[in-house]
């Protein structure tokens, strides 16, 4: 766009559509990745210094092997953290009215679950991340997912914490089974800071 120094309404709308007209609180798309037949998907440019809170969605993620589940880990200094540095707690709520099932672990090497192992069914969900770029605070997240276990709808909610005060500079989603692969769409956003 030519820089005339004056913005009319159409200019502003055009800039807003292209994320070039910044407002506090904007949900700014950092990256969308559409993957097919992958074992992992990495976000390695998460702009952790720009955003205090990140928001991530995934849609239509399927594990066609039918036996795996989706987990995630963080990057620190560009390296995936596989040590026992993750805590999480979630609850599975099933539409058939059966008891709530905990999915939880302490000091483990990944966050899970995000996706029940359910063959051809698809999972969708979102995560809020807090303080990924703050070296003086622990990184936290809350998570919601929806999936099916066979013919039963499953809704999972919970959260997790990274047990080290490090700057997190990337996120990896990975299949629990090394030989398994998934499809799907992942989008990472930042909520523009005041």
């Amino acid at each position, binding site marked *: 766009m030519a820089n005339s120094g004056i913005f009319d309404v159409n200019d502003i709308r055009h800039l807003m559509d292209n994320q070039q007209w910044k*407002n506090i*609180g904007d949900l700014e798309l950092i990256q969308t990745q559409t993957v097919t037949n992958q074992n992992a998907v990495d976000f390695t440019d998460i702009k952790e210094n720009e955003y205090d809170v990140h928001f991530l969605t995934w849609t239509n993620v399927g594990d066609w092997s039918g036996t795996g589940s989706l987990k995630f880990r963080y990057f620190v200094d560009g390296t995936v953290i596989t040590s026992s540095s993750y805590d999480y707690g979630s609850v599975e709520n099933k539409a058939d009215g059966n008891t709530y099932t905990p999915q*939880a672990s*302490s000091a483990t090497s990944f966050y899970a679950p995000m996706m029940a192992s359910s063959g051809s069914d698809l999972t969708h969900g979102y995560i809020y991340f*807090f303080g990924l770029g703050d070296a003086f605070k622990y990184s936290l997240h809350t998570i919601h997912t929806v999936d099916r276990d066979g013919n039963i709808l499953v809704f999972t909610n919970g959260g997790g914490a990274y047990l080290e005060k490090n700057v997190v500079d990337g996120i990896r989603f990975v299949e629990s089974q090394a030989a398994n692969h998934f499809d799907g769409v992942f989008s990472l956003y930042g909520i523009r800071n005041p």
Partner: protein
Amino acid sequence: MSTNLQFIKEVKGVNVSNLEVLNCFSADYDIYKVILQNINGANNDLYTRVINNSGTEISSGSKYHYANHEINDSGSFGANKNASFNEYRGMGYQSHSGSGTVAYFYNPYVSSSYTYITSQTSSLYSSATAMRAGKSMGVYKNEDIITGFKIHAVSNVFYWIKVQVYGVE
């Protein structure tokens, strides 16, 4: 149709036992998104009360109802609920190692409606060795015009607390 978040206010506190977030609700929006983060000297619940358009914090009358589900990294669950209380416990936790919460307020400024709140939270405590997540819903069961809210520590003080309020446009 909701299209965007409109920033309204950020309020921070250091070494405080409570934090007022005043004049953040108005006739401009029906739904508000609140992001709350804190570090506290103790691990506990925190509680919230609404503030009406006279600037009065509503602390009597047993007008708060809530139900919280707590999810621990041990796999255990907890519940905290009340159908008649003078405060809303559930919009996150106070935590020694940090807590992050996203909450929504519905119709706070609508004088003919109750004010509903939902939230989800994650917190780290016990010297950063244990995690507790939470899902909560609550209602301030009175038809007032609500313009703000106040967050209180149940114990100790917030070493650091930050609240951001957005209108859902």
